[in-house]
């Protein structure tokens, strides 16, 4: 029996207060995610239950109970307090998926500070703009990332502390660097959680838009209500589950459902800190008896590429429920998973801004392969006419996916960017920037983005950021960036560039530009193809016609080109 039971019944009379009751939270009381994910679970008699099963790329395995994560969160929180970190200060996590990342997340929240998780593959420029924007006061990292941090530290006056959790005593520390070893620090048994309230800020994730710099999406402690109930009803987490969320906590899935959802329910979760390999993933599931698996379409398509025969080498009978997030899950992947695992992947749709799952295929509900599913109970989800912004009533018509604001995990602001935040709302609807249609049974069907943002492997990349970075390459005069189709990642980045006089394109230059962007921004933003052009198509007012380049890559109609600049 699934946790949600009947979806139709739950939709009828759902109130968010039902989730509050599960968590024994009452309006106006203290609510602290760090405390809910550790102390409360211990108080419920699960102190000795395994909270985290960790395996590193080198095969090192570690296990931590809920009491361990409570103590480690306290120890890190106390260390930060002694440094003078106060509530609402931003503390960045920039590290691999190691246990310290998870403990730090809890510790930072427990002292009332704001966690700013950043993907460890970010290059120095990507890192800089996000730390500068948030005026981050401290960051917790590993020594392997110091080269990147030292490049930008002088430009970040607000950044006071670089806390290195694996410092080698024989090495010299540079300015602002502090070493901290969890193993060498006495554990702190009691640490009072900061009395955060529902609207106290908690997590600051960055996301990319079509233009401008990345936006800091601010969430609050009350988001727990949504994350808890969606983890329970959509991911169907149950007491004896071994849960594996494959997302990196540098992204919102890795925190909402890689930390908060499961741990607030007292669920054991498994972490594999290693690059993707189909064989290693199946082995990990078998070894840890993973029963609930939350992954991404890109990973699923990579597993499909590895072939059906490989699956037969492993005992994956522990798998009970599968779900997916990040980009649309194609029907072939759903059918494939039913064939090889005996269970379908359940697609879920949500965003950094929504903070929790909004549309989903629920356990027990009829799955239409390729469909996003239906809105979560309590969520008013519609598709809007792109001109009038009124809900479309006619089944099958394409419109903008929108939600009526008011669910607990809804972002509260874009950090220091009220204008951009305001632009996300029209006629009282929150606009997701995605397009879909709804069929006559209420199922949503994803169509695509409503803007130029590139969704590659479930991660959003801003064409503007890549175009700007390309202009910093000495030989590049102009640049335009669009997506191109990709079998595994759905979309990848493609760049068009013109060169300054005196430069001639060649294959070495193409590779050099690719690596330049990878190091400056991230591997996700690295163009997987670069086309050298004599001229970038622009409108007469000088705006790059990405639409034209995009249409060419996707084999679509070019449409109106009356505004195209003439020679």
């Amino acid at each position, binding site marked *: 029996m699934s946790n949600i039971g009947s979806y139709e019944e739950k939709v009828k009379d759902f109130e968010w207060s039902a989730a509050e009751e599960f968590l024994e939270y009452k309006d106006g009381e203290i609510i602290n995610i760090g405390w809910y994910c550790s102390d409360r679970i211990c108080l419920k008699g699960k102190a000795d239950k395994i909270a985290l099963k960790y395996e590193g*790329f*080198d095969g090192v395995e570690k296990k931590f109970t809920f009491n361990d994560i409570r103590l480690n969160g306290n120890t890190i929180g106390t260390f930060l307090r002694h440094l003078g970190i106060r509530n609402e200060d931003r503390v960045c996590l920039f590290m*691999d998926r190691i246990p310290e990342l998870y403990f730090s997340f809890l510790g930072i929240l427990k002292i009332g500070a704001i966690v700013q998780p950043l993907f460890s*593959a970010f290059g120095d420029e990507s890192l800089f703009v996000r730390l500068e924007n948030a005026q981050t006061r401290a960051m917790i990292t590993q*020594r*392997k990332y110091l*080269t*990147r941090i030292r490049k930008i530290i002088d430009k970040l006056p607000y950044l006071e502390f670089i806390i290195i959790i694996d410092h*080698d005593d024989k*090495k010299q520390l540079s300015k602002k660097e502090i070493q901290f070893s969890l193993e060498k620090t006495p554990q702190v048994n009691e640490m009072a959680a900061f009395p955060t309230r529902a609207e106290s800020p908690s997590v600051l994730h960055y996301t990319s838009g079509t233009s401008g710099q990345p936006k800091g999406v601010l969430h609050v402690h009350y988001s727990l209500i949504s994350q808890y109930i969606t983890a329970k009803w959509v991911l169907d987490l149950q007491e004896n589950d071994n849960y594996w969320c494959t997302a990196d906590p540098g992204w919102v899935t890795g925190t909402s459902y890689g930390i908060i959802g499961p741990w607030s329910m007292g669920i054991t979760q498994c972490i594999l*800190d*290693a*690059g*993707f*390999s*189909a*064989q*290693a993933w199946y082995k990990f599931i078998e070894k840890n008896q993973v029963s609930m698996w939350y992954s991404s379409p890109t990973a699923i398509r*990579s597993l499909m*590429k*590895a072939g059906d025969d490989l699956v037969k080498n492993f005992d994956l009978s522990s798998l009970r429920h599968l779900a997916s997030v990040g980009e649309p899950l194609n029907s072939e992947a759903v059918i494939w998973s039913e064939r090889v695992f005996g269970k379908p992947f359940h697609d879920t749709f949500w965003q950094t801004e929504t903070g929790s799952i909004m549309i989903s295929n629920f356990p027990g509900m009829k799955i239409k392969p390729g469909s996003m599913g239906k809105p979560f109970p309590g969520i008013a989800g519609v598709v809007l006419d792109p001109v009038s912004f009124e809900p479309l009533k006619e089944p099958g018509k394409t419109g903008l996916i929108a939600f009526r604001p008011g669910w607990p995990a809804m972002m509260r602001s874009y950090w220091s960017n009220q204008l951009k935040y305001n632009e996300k709302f029209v006629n009282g609807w929150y606009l997701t920037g995605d397009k879909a249609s709804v069929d006559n049974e209420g199922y949503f069907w994803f169509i695509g983005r409503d803007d130029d943002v590139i969704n*590659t*492997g479930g991660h959003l990349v801003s064409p503007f950021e890549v175009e700007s970075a390309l202009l910093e390459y000495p030989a590049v005069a102009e640049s335009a960036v669009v997506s191109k189709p990709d079998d595994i*990642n759905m979309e990848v980045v493609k760049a068009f560039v013109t060169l300054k006089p005196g430069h001639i394109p060649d*294959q*070495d230059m*193409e*590779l050099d530009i*690719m*690596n330049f962007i*990878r190091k400056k921004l991230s*591997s*996700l933003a*690295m163009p*997987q193809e670069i086309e050298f052009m004599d001229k970038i198509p622009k409108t007469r007012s000088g705006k790059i016609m990405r639409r034209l380049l995009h249409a060419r890559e996707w084999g679509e109609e070019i449409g109106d080109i009356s505004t195209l600049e003439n020679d």
Partner: protein
Amino acid sequence: MEKMDLEEMKDLVLKYVIKEYMEDEEAEVTNDTPLISSGYVDSFSMVSLLVFLERKFSIKIPPSKATPEAFDSVNKIVALVNQCMS
């Protein structure tokens, strides 16, 4: 391209990997060091490594062979390159 022996090929690939992907100056990298599983080279970065290999050795690596497992160390990469050359 001049004909290289196996050791020269390994040397060339190792130097490229260190130059392009190893920002951690303390990391000791050998021909057996895991590259993909360790996270030094992620699946997106694999594309630039693949482009380098195809151009340097004038080969075409079929997508079915460009797997994370085949790219997981310099030794494995050179074995794949050799396979694609023959």
